[in-house]
């Protein structure tokens, strides 16, 4: 049983804060739930399914359902694939609605890494019982150097350059200048990116995403409920999810799990990459975007550098407008998990509610893609294709 056309996104909310010093983690989840349900025109008592990931404290859904007083939940899912979790949740919520398990699904993400650091709270340590831990952690892997090795190898195999990667940040910054809530507003140039401090060769500071607090939420409903609401509805057309890892030592850092999640999502939606008017692409780093665009089939493998150059990702300028909210590179990467905000901007685009300066004309089909974990080792990839009522 497929999910095409069997559920709708009717409510979204992006928390406006970027530093949450005066808010607790559960409080952020609740404020987000309230915002998303208000956007949908629904109440908390309408919610019969709840989805959250590893960012939720305690036992995840159990603690959050109690805290928020969601008294009618009969379907729960706490799938954890890092930053892509919320795109997986959209897929799972669509499946649950299509199967008749629920009618109103609420998904929330929240995080406060900025506040936690200021309060001196320890960062969350990777579980020492993870089987890879003993053989990797002694070597000092961190988020940036693990993504950097992907960029280094991609450059080696395909001749990709730092200037080409920089164009991805440049495009995001062009969009972020119109987003009042964006963490970074200033338009940057290719020179600004390649002259910013080297963090882990070949990635510069401006190749990296922002670190922010806040989060976001999504409300998904059955077609029957959607028809009863006033809000512009966004149809879920197809989705895919896939793990990718080090394959027992047969390491290839030049591609992501998008090469499996993408084709499944496109097939289910009955579309091809050329049908996509707008794409939200997970942008923890510039290299994440470049490899993902290739893997999703927007260009051939190895030609991502050429594809992203000269403003091809800038709305109104290039062929594939991406991350028109400014993305994780400039706007928001709440809780170090960017999958949620990818869905939110894709929904705004299909609704026609993106900022007028970046709104894509006749945006009837949009895509959102997430990469959770590390591109340089193991990841959960997830893709969703969304459309207007007529799509």
């Amino acid at each position: 049983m497929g999910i095409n056309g069997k559920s709708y996104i009717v409510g979204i909310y992006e928390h406006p804060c970027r530093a949450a010093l005066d808010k607790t983690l559960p409080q952020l989840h609740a404020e987000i739930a309230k915002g998303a349900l208000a956007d949908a025109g629904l109440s908390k008592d309408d919610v019969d399914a709840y989805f959250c990931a590893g960012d939720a404290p305690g036992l995840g859904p159990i603690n959050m359902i109690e805290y928020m007083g969601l008294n009618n939940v009969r379907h729960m899912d706490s799938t954890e694939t890092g930053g892509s979790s919320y795109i997986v949740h959209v897929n799972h919520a669509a499946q649950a609605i299509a199967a008749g398990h629920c009618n109103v699904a609420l998904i929330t993400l929240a995080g406060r890494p900025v506040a936690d650091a200021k309060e001196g709270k320890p960062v969350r340590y990777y579980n020492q019982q993870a089987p890879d831990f003993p053989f990797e952690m002694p070597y000092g892997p961190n988020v940036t150097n693990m993504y950097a090795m992907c960029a280094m190898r991609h450059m080696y195999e395909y001749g990709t350059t730092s200037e080409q990667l920089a164009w991805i940040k440049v495009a995001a910054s062009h969009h972020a200048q119109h987003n009042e809530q964006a963490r970074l507003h200033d338009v940057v140039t290719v020179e600004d990116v390649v002259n910013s401090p080297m963090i882990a060769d070949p990635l510069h500071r401006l190749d990296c995403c922002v670190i922010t607090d806040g989060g976001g939420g999504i409300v998904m409903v059955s077609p029957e409920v959607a028809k009863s609401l006033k809000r512009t509805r966004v149809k879920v057309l197809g989705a895919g999810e896939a793990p990718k890892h080090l394959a027992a030592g047969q390491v290839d850092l030049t591609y992501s799990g998008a090469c499996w999640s993408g084709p499944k999502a496109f097939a289910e939606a009955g579309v091809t990459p050329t049908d996509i008017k707008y794409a939200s692409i997970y942008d923890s780093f510039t290299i994440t975007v470049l490899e993902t665009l290739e893997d999703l089939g927007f260009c051939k493998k190895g030609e991502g550098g050429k594809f992203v150059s000269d403003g091809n990702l800038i709305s109104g300028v290039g062929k594939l407008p991406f991350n028109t909210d400014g993305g994780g590179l400039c706007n928001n990467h709440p809780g170090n998990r960017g999958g949620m905000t990818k869905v939110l901007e894709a929904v705004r685009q299909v609704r026609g509610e993106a900022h007028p300066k970046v709104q894509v004309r006749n945006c009837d089909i949009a895509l959102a893609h997430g990469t959770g974990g590390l591109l340089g080792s193991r990841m959960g990839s997830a893709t969703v294709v969304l459309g207007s009522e007529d799509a």
Partner: protein
Amino acid sequence: MSTDQKSKINLVVNSESKPYWEGAAKGQLLIRTCNACGKAHHYPRTICPHCFSDDTAFVEASGNGVIYSYSVTRQAKPPYVIAYVTLDEGVTMLTNIVDCEIDRIRIGQKVRVKFSEAGDGYALPVFTSA
């Protein structure tokens, strides 16, 4: 803790990994190989991730390999080099490149294992120019 800093080496030695670390302490790089399908894998597991056989054993690797990819963590003091090295036996492992001029490190460069002290009598396999 800043994620830019290389944290203190803190080996996790458990029943599955202990022979690997004991080998390293004696100056041996061990890789796990499957007697059923004949393939090597890394990191080492009891049950073969290729064919699911439980007939696996550690064998000593030659210690030779080439750099598949690397990165210099510039903000760390001192900067350090993380790398994936493909061993002659065909598996690729995460490691550090040490005792090299870091700006001359290249993908495809031949490297050879060496062992750095990891405390409690253990040692960590790292690589340097061959």
